[in-house]
């Protein structure tokens, strides 16, 4: 239980913040599941096109651990299975049936949950298909069910533009959240840390350590929470999970059915003003109708996740298993005449190299995807660490990663981090280095070699 002030940080002042209200989004006709979302999983499909199944019916399992099941978010018929590279299933499309039949699992309350052993709970979550919501550090991979971690970090913060507001999501679901937290307590030998921002209206919960953080982005990143509360030592593992996913697990335990909905935030400069808000959507629901209505602009990039760390998706995209936000902004291919020497009144910079930094301190910018420059050799300026609260020497870490020096990467603290922690470094870098990508490959390399 503690309060943490994060001094270093930077909020990208981009327009399009979603309002703090939730609109129910009607159930669409098609649903999608993306097996590619689950990094490290080798899916063995259990269905074919044309099969009908109930909500909660088995879609595929992991070849590496057959206990790990992935289940259907709706009752209906398999419409198509789109294969990607190397015949890896990229998308399973399900046509919704009129009748919403559901597979029922065991249900629990706080007392009966207490009687469960860790193994029984793990098996239950694996079987119901919600285990992959729990991730593990280092490497941000799906949690290893076997080894009990030293702690679980529940992230109810989120400072990147624009993450869903958990105080909003939590309304009416406090009970399910508490039950989910109880389940988290079962999983670890240590403590469960619930981390929230100081300004969020989130009550205290039992059984867990309630921490508050204040500061600019990345104060809401899980890595920062771990670093301040219980840093990862070599050989350690911690579980991490987003607070909304704890509610999903709580609902599963409570009702014995797969949860049906979650809340997503839709924001960004390319979203029409009146559509910038939170939506209660069905898991896996196709969002094409929403995007068609809500987006404006000639060429819009839709991102699943936040603008600093998310993946580009198509306008046909469905609600993803991970993440609770979509962000839309315009592809900006404009070219500025003599842009290198304009006073910079209309360019947004975190540095003091454009007059706008001085003159429009409060302005929210309608930013596009322009790179604003060409790639250059990296020069160590120290700017990468300017907004890094993690006590990481980013420049040296990037160099070590480029040199494939796994030992030095570990010494410099790469295991404490996730690529998302370097988004601000990449944002501010004048040489347009792909910092996040370099760190991601560095982490993959270490994982392959083993620590």
């Amino acid at each position, binding site marked *: 239980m503690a309060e943490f002030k994060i001094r270093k940080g930077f909020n990208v002042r981009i327009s399009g913040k979603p309002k703090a209200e939730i609109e129910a989004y009607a159930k669409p006709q098609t649903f999608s599941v993306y097996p590619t979302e689950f990094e490290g999983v080798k899916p063995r499909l259990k269905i074919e096109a044309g099969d009908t199944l109930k909500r909660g019916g088995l879609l595929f399992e992991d070849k590496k651990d057959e206990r790990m099941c992935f289940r259907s978010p709706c009752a209906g018929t398999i419409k198509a299975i789109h294969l990607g590279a190397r015949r890896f299933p990229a998308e399973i499309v399900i046509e919704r049936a009129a009748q919403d039949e559901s597979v029922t699992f065991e249900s629990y309350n706080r007392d009966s949950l207490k009687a469960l052993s860790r193994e029984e709970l793990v098996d239950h979550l694996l079987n119901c298909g919600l285990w992959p919501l729990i991730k593990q550090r280092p490497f941000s991979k799906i949690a290893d069910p076997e080894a009990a971690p030293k702690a679980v970090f529940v992230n109810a913060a989120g400072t990147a533009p624009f993450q869903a507001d958990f105080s909003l999501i939590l309304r009416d679901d406090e009970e399910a959240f508490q039950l989910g937290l109880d389940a988290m307590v079962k999983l670890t030998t240590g403590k469960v840390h619930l981390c929230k921002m100081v300004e969020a209206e989130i009550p205290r919960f039992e059984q867990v350590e309630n921490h508050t953080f204040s500061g600019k982005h990345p104060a809401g990143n899980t890595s920062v929470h771990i670093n301040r509360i219980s840093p990862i*030592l070599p050989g350690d593992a911690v579980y991490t999970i987003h607070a909304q996913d704890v509610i999903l697990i709580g609902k599963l335990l409570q009702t014995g059915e797969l949860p049906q909905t979650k809340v997503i935030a839709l924001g960004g400069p390319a979203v029409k003003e009146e559509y910038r808000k939170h939506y209660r959507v069905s898991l896996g629901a196709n969002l094409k109708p929403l995007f068609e209505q809500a987006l404006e602009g000639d060429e819009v990039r839709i991102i699943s996740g936040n603008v600093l760390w998310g993946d580009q998706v198509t306008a046909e995209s469905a609600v993803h298993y991970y993440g609770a936000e979509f962000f839309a902004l315009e592809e900006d291919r404009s070219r500025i005449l003599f842009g290198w020497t304009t006073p910079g009144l209309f360019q947004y910079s*975190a540095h003091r190299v454009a007059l706008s930094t001085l003159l429009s301190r409060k302005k929210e910018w309608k930013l596009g995807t322009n790179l604003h420059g060409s790639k250059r050799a990296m020069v160590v300026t120290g700017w990468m660490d300017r907004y890094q609260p993690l006590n990481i020497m980013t420049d040296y870490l990037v160099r070590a990663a480029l040199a494939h020096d796994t030992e030095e990467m570990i010494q410099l603290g790469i295991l404490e981090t996730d690529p998302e922690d370097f988004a601000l470094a990449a944002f501010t870098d004048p040489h347009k280095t792909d910092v996040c990508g370099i760190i991601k490959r560095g982490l993959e390399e270490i994982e392959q070699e083993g620590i």
Partner: protein
Amino acid sequence: MKFPISDLMEKKLAPHFKNGGKLARLYPLYEAGDTFARTPAEVTQSAPHVRDAIDQKRLMILVIYALMPCLFFGIWNAGHQFNLANGIDATLKADLLRGSAMVLPILLVSYLVGGLWEVLFAVVRRHEINEGFLVTGMLFPLVLPPTIPLWQVAVGISFGIVIGKEIFGGVGYNILNPALTARAFLFFAYPKWISGDTVWVGSLNANPLVDKLLGTASHTADVVTQATPLAVASAAERGTNAAAALNEAGYSLWDMTLGTIPGCIGSTSVIAILLGMIILLLCGIASWQIMVSGIIGCAAMGALFNLLPIDNPYTALPFYYHLVMGGFLFGIVFMATDPVSGAATNVGKWIYGFLIGVLTVLIRVTNPAFPEGVMLAILFMNVMAPLIDHFVVQAHIKKRSAYARSLNHA
């Protein structure tokens, strides 16, 4: 918005330089011109999906702007010193014209020859032209005497760019500051032209064409000798007072601050350098740690010499003279802060800057062979910078693991 230039670039020129065009090998040249005219249209390929408006071009142009006070003052001062020494009416116009005739050809040669190498390497290596040479090409002329023969400028900048930078892989990979490497090469290869008493102001009829144009061809020509303050201080004899010797030679503290004294083109005026320093610091593009620690180091070493009981008038020279004499300030503001060749860690920058200040004074005072120490001090510390950073990074690693362990057993 569509500009006529964009049509010209995209429709008429681009096809020749793109793959399959006749001039495809010269693509870097086209790319440089294209992105010079208009910022590139490239969009982000991966997260983060938005980026800051800053890029290398903007960064480098700001350094160039910061050098402008030094350049303009240098042009005027070169002409002014010339006219004074040669007995020509030192009006503002005459000074500027004479100064331009002396300095601009040096600048031009530096940019042309340096740019040529940069383009050549970019074409051979098939990468984009790096804007770094814009700064190198400006820094180098500013640390040369105004009488330097143009062929030496060409040779010097070639050495600086090729040996100092390109053989390591270009901007971002070099160990030494390219502009200083170029100057050091000239200093050791052609010492007669870059040091001594005859190179700082120049004499009439060295360039008959210029004299004809400026109407000074009829004046009688003498070889002008003018010692720089550093040489005067260094030559002060035992038992005399170095500060008094400087005053006697016409170099008061104020003159040296103002910069109206003979010396390298851009580095005489403390005021012009401070203006540049303010620009750099306001924009936050050069390390203030290096500047501050360098000045502290220089003053500290000067003060230490003041205290030591050595029978050498130079050691007794008040320490603040060292800050305004010679090229120290220019070096610490513009050369030492080069992020590629300097120390990279914050703690490292303090050590690096401080030692540059200390070494500068040490070389000046104790080594009569080198009246100016800042060039060698910076080059030496360039070489040492990775070592300093190595120790800082090692300390950082120790501190990291201590922090993690302390929280885990708390």
